């Protein structure tokens, strides 16, 4: 049976990518997303926690009990989250390969 590919929203993808190295709390995720995107993506805390809730509900990330501080919760990828991230990265890799073959990168004309 053909497997259906569900593309992740950009914010969700950025959060999963930010959590791929180590568990992080909210502000660390925002900083990492900003670094990963070279300053192009700046998340608001509202957008961050809406996406975190969605990822948490879908069991793509889980909360860690590293501290007792309720204001600082750490999140890490679950196996499902890593699989979703890999699937997404695979999709982007294919897209990049295609773009290279078709010579449609900026400054690269056929």
């Amino acid at each position, binding site marked *: 049976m053909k497997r259906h590919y569900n593309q992740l929203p950009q914010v969700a993808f950025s959060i999963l990518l930010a959590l791929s190295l180590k568990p992080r*709390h*909210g*502000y660390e995720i*925002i900083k990492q997303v900003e670094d990963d995107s070279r300053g192009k993506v*700046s998340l*608001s*805390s*509202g*957008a*961050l*926690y*809406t996406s*975190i*809730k969605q990822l948490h509900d879908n069991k793509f990330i889980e909360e860690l009990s590293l501290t007792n501080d*309720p*204001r*600082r*919760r750490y999140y890490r990828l679950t196996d499902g989250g890593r699989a979703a991230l890999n699937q997404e990265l695979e999709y982007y890799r294919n897209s990049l390969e295609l773009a290279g073959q078709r010579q449609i990168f900026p400054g690269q004309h056929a």
Partner: protein
Amino acid sequence: MLSFYPEHYREQYGMQAAQTLDDMLADTSSRGKRALIWARELLVLPGNAAEQHLIELSRRGHLRPRTLVDMIALALLLPFVLAIVIDEFSEYFSSSHLYGSWLWSLPVLLIWALVLPLFSLAISSIALILSLLRSRQRQVKSPHHLQIPWQTIVVGVLALGLLSLTVFHDSVQCWTTNPGNAIANISQTSQCTSQTMLRIDFH
């Protein structure tokens, strides 16, 4: 800002979101960047809060298909209400109506004043009929079980009211100045209506 979110969301993420915002503001030295952070938060607030309320309603089992249909029908009436409110503001602050603006030009006027309310009325009418049919079927099984779809009725009446306002508002003057004549000669009233509308369109 957190008070706009549902209680369940606030309990789960409220303190973390507040801490994250504190961290962002503390890490920013310039006043301009702080203003930008606040602006971004305010910009995403309505959409995020509405989304979370919908999720919460759905989680509690309150977001039944009928509620969703009522919400869509109600949303179709929003442009009409907003246009009237904006026009009232314009009249209050600058003593002029917006009749010459793009909001009152065709086809924009036709969409918010006629098409969307008509769709809304159609949707609520169909929902009402289906709901009554279902209720009647249930009543056969249990005679005391009668559910009146008040939400749908209210939205339908509102749509009908706004449509009536669109169709008859220009003839109000005819009806108020000489109601007897207006009743006696409906076609004359329609003529008066069309003439008034022509005056608005061309002047």
